[in-house]
C-alpha cells in the first residue's frame, strides 16, 4: 500500500468526508472542520503539482481495478492548474463564509455539507479520464450548485435555482446523448482510447456527438446567448456562494470544452466553428459589460461582469485553432491564465461586494456612500480585483490578456484585439461606477457598520493573489505545459 497517501483519490475523498461530517454535525456546523480540511486539500494539490513537474502525467486506477472495468483518474498539467485554483480559491472563501454567516445567518443551514460535495465534484471532474465519469461529476456539480443557489430561500433565489436547474439538466442531457453516440460508434468512453480513434474521416454520428457535447457544455458555462440563467443565480445567492459559483463552477464546464476541443475533437474542429465560438465570446464581452454598467444592484453588476469575463475565455478558440504553433501555445496559456485570474479576482470581488452589503445593510450601488471610509481594505480589494478584470499590469489579468493579444497579432486576427480593448474599457467603467459611489460620504439616514476582520482579510488575500500571479505566474504556465509535453 505504498500509494495510500496518493493525492489523487484523497482530493476527492476528503471533501466528501468533511461534507458528510458537517451534515452529521447539524445545521450551520462544521465551518472550522471545513477550513482545516481545505487547507489539507491545498497541500495535496501542491504535492500533485510537484509530482507532475517531476514525472509528467499521473494516472491512478481506483481500487487497482483499472479501466475499462474500473475507473481511472488522470491528472495532467491543465487538470493540476484547475485543481490548484479550486483549492486555493476555496480556502479563503471558507474563512470568509464563516465570518459572513456569523454576521448574516440566512442560508447557513446546509452551506458546509453542500460546499463539501461541490468541491468533491469539482476535483473529481478535473481528475476524470473518461467521458461517462465526466457526465456523472458534471451532474453532481450541477446539483450541488443549484442547491447552493437555493440555500437562502425566498422567492428570487428559488426561481433562479429552478431556472439554473433546468438549464443545467438540459446541458448534461445533450452531453449524455453525445456520449451515447460516441460509445455506439467506438465502444469506449475512455479519453485515451478514443483519442487515436477519432480522425477527420469520422462518421456523421461522431460530428453530431461533438456538437451536442459542446452545446451542452456551453449552456453550462453560460456563454452568450446561453447566459440567461447566470445573473439571477449568481447575483441572488449569499455572497460566499456567488463567489464559489462564479469563480469555480463555470470554469469546470469551460475546462471540459477546452479539453474536448484540444484533445478529443481536435481532428474535427473547423475554422468556422472556432470563429463562431470567438464571436460568441466577443458578444458576451460587450453585452455582459454593458449590462453590468446598467445594473443598480451591486451583486447583479458583479454577476454580469462574470458573463463578460467568460467571453474572454472563448477568444482562445479561434486563436488556438488558426494560429501558427508558437502563437497557439501562447493563446492556450493566455486562456488558462484568464480562467485562473478571473477565478481569483471574481471570488475577491463577490466577497468584497458581500462585505459591503453586510455593512450597508442593502444591495444598492447608489447607497454605497461611506464604504470607502469605514471599509477601506474591502474597497481596496474590490479595486484590486477590478484591476485584474480590466487587465491592467501587473495583474494576472494583464498577463492573460497580453498572451491572448500576442497570439491574436501573430495570427493576424486584429479584430479580437479591438474587442479585448473595448471590453477592458467597459470593465473600467463599471468598476469605477462602484468605486465612485463608495468614496462619497455617508448619506443622511444611512449607516455603515464594521464587518468582521475575517471578511476583509480573506477578500484581500484573494485580490492580492490575483495581482501577484501576474508577477510570479511563470511556474503556473510551466505546470500547464508539463502535461502537454508528455
Amino acid at each position, binding site marked *: 500500500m505504498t500509494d495510500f497517501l496518493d493525492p489523487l483519490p484523497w482530493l476527492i475523498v476528503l471533501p466528501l468526508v468533511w461534507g458528510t461530517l458537517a451534515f452529521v454535525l447539524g445545521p450551520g456546523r462544521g465551518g472550522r472542520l471545513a477550513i482545516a480540511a481545505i487547507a489539507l486539500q491545498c497541500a495535496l494539490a501542491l504535492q500533485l503539482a510537484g509530482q507532475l513537474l517531476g514525472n509528467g502525467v499521473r494516472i491512478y486506477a481506483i481500487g487497482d481495478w483499472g479501466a*475499462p472495468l474500473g475507473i481511472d483518474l488522470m491528472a495532467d498539467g491543465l487538470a493540476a492548474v484547475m485543481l490548484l485554483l479550486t483549492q486555493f480559491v476555496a480556502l479563503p472563501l471558507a474563512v470568509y463564509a464563516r465570518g459572513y454567516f456569523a454576521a448574516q445567518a440566512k442560508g447557513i443551514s446546509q452551506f458546509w455539507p453542500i460546499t463539501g460535495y461541490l468541491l468533491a465534484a469539482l476535483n473529481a471532474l478535473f481528475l476524470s479520464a473518461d467521458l*461517462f465519469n465526466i*457526465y*456523472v461529476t458534471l*451532474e*453532481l456539480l*450541477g*446539483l450541488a450548485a*443549484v*442547491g447552493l443557489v*437555493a440555500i437562502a*430561500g*425566498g*422567492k*428570487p433565489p*428559488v*426561481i433562479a*435555482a*429552478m*431556472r439554473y*436547474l*433546468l438549464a443545467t*439538466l*438540459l446541458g448534461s*442531457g445533450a452531453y*449524455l*446523448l453525445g*456520449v*451515447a*453516440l460516441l*460509445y*455506439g*460508434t467506438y*465502444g469506449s*468512453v475512455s479519453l485515451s482510447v478514443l483519442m487515436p480513434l477519432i480522425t477527420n474521416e469520422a462518421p456523421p454520428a461522431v460530428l453530431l456527438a461533438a456538437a451536442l457535447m459542446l452545446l451542452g457544455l456551453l449552456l453550462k458555462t453560460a456563454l452568450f446567448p446561453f447566459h*440567461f440563467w447566470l*445573473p*439571477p443565480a449568481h447575483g441572488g445567492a449569499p455572497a460566499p456562494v456567488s463567489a464559489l459559483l462564479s469563480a469555480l463552477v463555470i470554469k469546470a464546464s469551460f475546462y471540459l470544452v477546452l479539453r474536448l476541443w484540444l484533445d478529443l475533437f481536435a481532428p474535427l474542429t473547423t475554422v468556422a466553428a472556432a470563429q463562431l465560438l470567438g464571436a460568441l465570446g466577443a458578444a458576451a464581452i460587450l453585452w455582459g459589460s454593458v*449590462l453590468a454598467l*446598467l*445594473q*443598480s444592484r451591486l451583486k*447583479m453588476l458583479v454577476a454580469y461582469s462574470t458573463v463578460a469575463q467568460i467571453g474572454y475565455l472563448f477568444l482562445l478558440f479561434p486563436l488556438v485553432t488558426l494560429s501558427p504553433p508558437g502563437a497557439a501555445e501562447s493563446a492556450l496559456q493566455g486562456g488558462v491564465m484568464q480562467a485562473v485570474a478571473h477565478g481569483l479576482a471574481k471570488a475577491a470581488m463577490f466577497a468584497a461586494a458581500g462585505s459591503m452589503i453586510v455593512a450597508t445593510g442593502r444591495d444598492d450601488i447608489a447607497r454605497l456612500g461611506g464604504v470607502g471610509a469605514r471599509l477601506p481594505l474591502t474597497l481596496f480589494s474590490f479595486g484590486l480585483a477590478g484591476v485584474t478584470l480590466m487587465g491592467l499590469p501587473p495583474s494576472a489579468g494583464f498577463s492573460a490578456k497580453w498572451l491572448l493579444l500576442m497570439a491574436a497579432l501573430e495570427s493576424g486576427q486584429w479584430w479580437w484585439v479591438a474587442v479585448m480593448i473595448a471590453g477592458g474599457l467597459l470593465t473600467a467603467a463599471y468598476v469605477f461606477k462602484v468605486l465612485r459611489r463608495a468614496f462619497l460620504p455617508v448619506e443622511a439616514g444611512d449607516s455603515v457598520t464594521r464587518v468582521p476582520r475575517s471578511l476583509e482579510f480573506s477578500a484581500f488575500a484573494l485580490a492580492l493573489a490575483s495581482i501577484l500571479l501576474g508577477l510570479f505566474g511563470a511556474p503556473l504556465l510551466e505546470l500547464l505545459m508539463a502535461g502537454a509535453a508528455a
Partner: protein
Amino acid sequence: MSTALLYALAGAALFAIGLAGLLLQPHLLRNILAFNILGSGAFLILVGLGQRDGITDPVPQAMVLTGIVVAIAATALALALARQLLDLTGQMRLPEDRPDSNPADD
C-alpha cells in the same frame, strides 16, 4: 433494419419529445417529466447502440444504471424546488420576465 438501430431511433425520438417538452412547456411538472423522457431517450441510445451482433455489452448497462441514479437525484431536487416555488408564489411555472430585459428591476 437492425434491432440496435431501431432502439437508437426510438431513443432519438424520445430525446426529441423530451427536448420539446423542456423548452416549450411552461408547467414545471411537465418540464421535470420532459427531462426524464429526454434522459430515457439518451439511455436507450446508449444501451441500444451498445450491443454488437445481438450480444449485449454490459458496460453501457452499468452506465445507464448509474445514469438512472443521477436522474432520480436530479428529479428529487427539481421536485423539492418546484414545491418550494409553489409555496412561495402559488404557481407551478417560472415567471416570464427575463432579467436582461429589465436590469433595473428586482
